[in-house]
């Protein structure tokens, strides 16, 4: 049994400790907001927070998450009103939407560390997240907008 804290809730899961966190989230706990895109740390669709840091859950063994706080897109904000979620909706960023949970989770860590990122900061922080539909311009714009909301709220 591995004890996990995901989105503030405790779970005990009976899986091989080498199982990537991604598949524990998706298959065992039915938290399917975190996506599979490549399985080899190339696309960012699977990004979650581990003790506040962005990790690629497809290459993160579940054993590494034991005793740490895991946050997924489902738990990013209890009311679903994280500044990034608001900005994403405001700018209607999504096309197919498949990459967007990973984009938002990566951006959330950026915004925590950098209250007013430049385009360059955004590009640096987000280059690990592929959007096959090509919504990058709106992602950039939405991160700026979310940073603004965050500053205003603070």
């Amino acid at each position, binding site marked *: 049994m591995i004890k996990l804290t995901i989105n503030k809730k405790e779970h005990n899961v009976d899986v091989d400790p080498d199982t990537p966190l991604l598949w524990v989230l998706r298959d065992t706990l039915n938290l399917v907001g975190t996506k599979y*895109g490549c399985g080899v740390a190339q696309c960012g669709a699977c990004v979650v927070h581990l003790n506040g840091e962005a990790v690629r859950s497809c290459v993160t063994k579940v054993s590494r998450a034991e005793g740490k706080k895991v946050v997924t897109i489902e738990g990013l904000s209890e009311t*679903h009103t994280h500044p990034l979620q608001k900005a994403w909706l405001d700018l209607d960023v999504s096309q*197919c939407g498949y990459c967007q949970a990973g984009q938002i989770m990566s951006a959330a860590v950026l915004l925590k560390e950098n209250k007013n990122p430049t385009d360059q900061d955004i590009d640096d922080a987000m280059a690990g997240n592929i959007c096959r539909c090509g919504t990058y311009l709106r992602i950039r714009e939405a991160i700026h907008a979310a940073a603004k909301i965050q500053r205003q709220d603070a």
Partner: protein
Amino acid sequence: MEKGNSTNSRRAFLRSSALLGGGLMIHFSGLTRFSPAEKLGNIDLPEQWNEINGYVKITADNLIKIICPNPEFGQNVMTSLPMIVAEELDVDWKKVIVEMGPHDNVKLGPQFTGGSNSVRMYWRPLRQAGAAARHMLKEAAAQTWGVPVEEITTKAGMLFHEKSGKSAKYGDVASKAATVPVPKDIKLKDVKSFNVVRHSQKNVEGEKIVTGKPLFGLDYTHEGMLIAMIEHPPAIGMKLKSFDASKTLQMPGVKDVFTLKLFEDGFEQGGFDTRTFNDLLVVVGKSTWEVMNARKKLVVEWTAAGDTKDYAGGRNGKTERIVPGELENTDRQYQKMREFADKPAQQLRKDGDPETAFKNAAQIIERTYTAPFLAHNCMEPMNFFAHVTDEKALLVGPLQAPGWTEPTLVKLLNLPADKIEIQMTRMGGGFGRRAYGHYLMEAALISKKVKAPIKLMYTREDDMTYGVYRPMYTATYRAALDANKNLIAFHVKGGGIPEHPIHANRFPAGAVDNYLAEGWQIPSNITTGAFRAPRSNFNAAAEQSFLDEVAEAMGKDPIEFRLELLKRAKETPVGKNNEYDADRYAGVLKLIRDKSGWNKPENKKYNRGVAAYFCHSSYAAHVVDMVMKDGQPYVERVFSAMDCGIVVNPDAATNMVQGAVVDGIGNAFYGGLIHKDGVAQQNNFNKYRIIRINEAPKKIDVSFVQNDIDPTGLGEPPFPPVFGAVANALYKTLGNRLYQQPFAVPVTDKRAF
């Protein structure tokens, strides 16, 4: 079809019924024949799909639900199609509930996502659906209040009778409306008075997306569901020889390992039943990770499949096609294309006397362009859920064309169509890839065999190496100039593996007196399929780059040169069957000239490239502004102009154009898949480069030509000309022209791709 029926099908025929518990449900049959502007693959869409039905429900407590008929793959039809109904129905868009419809070609029409057809084919029928419902509601209110129907007005889901001051919600009279005869001639709104359509509305699933709700095929789950994966041969052209699964079967979570045949020998395939591998080595287990691990323990021997046969059904009866068994190599593919390019080809169009014109030319410009196979790389890999029993089948997942898959399923499962239920989930991208439903058929056969609900999942590696790629293309363009540098003849000879890309009746056909278009093709076992603007996505790169060179040789500005040709095509068109409207084509060029500040001194700091193209009945032009960044060419800014008629949802349409531009830049620079002994050399994103945020422009400024023409295609048309504009900007940036895609490879590495 009986005569009575067929007459009926051409008139508005609408059906209404009362909802259980009160309310109105209307299936509206439209008038419009489904006639896609562009063929996909080699087949036409079935003739019988000549009716399109909307689907609206209004309950007594005033809930208004609009069913979206077409699968959603990111083109935002789940928003734009219901908007069209809502416009004519006159309801408050914010209160409308939108739901994705099940596969039901009778009630919901063709339900095909692809060919930039969704809005085009549903535009009239859905408007008629909304307008008829509104009329019936008005009629019901008039009867209730005892006033003439002409005096009833509507606004945002409310009915009003001004003289008496009476008002009601749609829901109040919905049950009565269900008894009102369906109107025959429905007057549609003036397009100038729209207040839902032509106004930006947010993606109806936006919130679900940003909060991680289950939406996609891979998110689907079911009581007792198992996970299945297929081990396919490492190389295209190989097949299973033998396998030893003893170690796999010992792995935790594994339920079964077995082989299946997708199609029996001689099976008549439909046009979209493309399959790369027929023998399926299947591993079924409890969870994704367990199956992934267990697969690694398989000991498999593969062998060369040799030449095989495909059988196609269709109107002309059963036809046989030999699929060559060669294990292909990219070097050899290029070599073969060069050999074929020198052989005589099929003439596709000829105007005037091109041979003589070329003979008499003062100058001939000749250039050859090539482009590699491209993998679609939808963000969500191929997958499908299936639960097949002896009596029925439930299939759930991402699919662009359920209507094309169902007939094959009927044959494969030996079940009647009405026992096969297909539900379409939101798709994590499609780009044409999900019009080919082999993964759904595989899922169905696996479920049938294991007698359990299963979800078939392709890993990224499975997805990228399976085939169904954008074909490999080449084309040689020749232009003849006379002594005064007038363009007197134009010749294009294009080919590819396994098809040629040439659209013979498109620009500059019609604008040059002497014109010749030819095509040839090389058979291959590498499977290919529609990829965002099939063929056009190559032509626009080659032809638009070539036209730039011709303009330069003639000493003309590239935009003015194109406009002169279009003027000719409009005033004294050459030949017949010119597909494009020269005025609309010129329109986007003029718009982009203005918007981009073409030739303005303040834009001198950019290396500018322009291109325009026509496809899917729409017109697109881009100006690409390139700079050098960190030693690499970088597209910093793009201006885009589109003429796709009425723009249903402007902000979402802008998003779509911006996405197409990014996609185009990415594929032009980096896209490409190569083979070594049949093995795809790219199998994940560490080897197949996809454009990333730092490579995306800072700004993409999108303008739409304002007109009241019924909507034409949008998802695809802005994509092809990006390649041409990038090629032309690269010439300015590098000082030399690049003819071989992907462009970033020759830039950084002189080796041939």
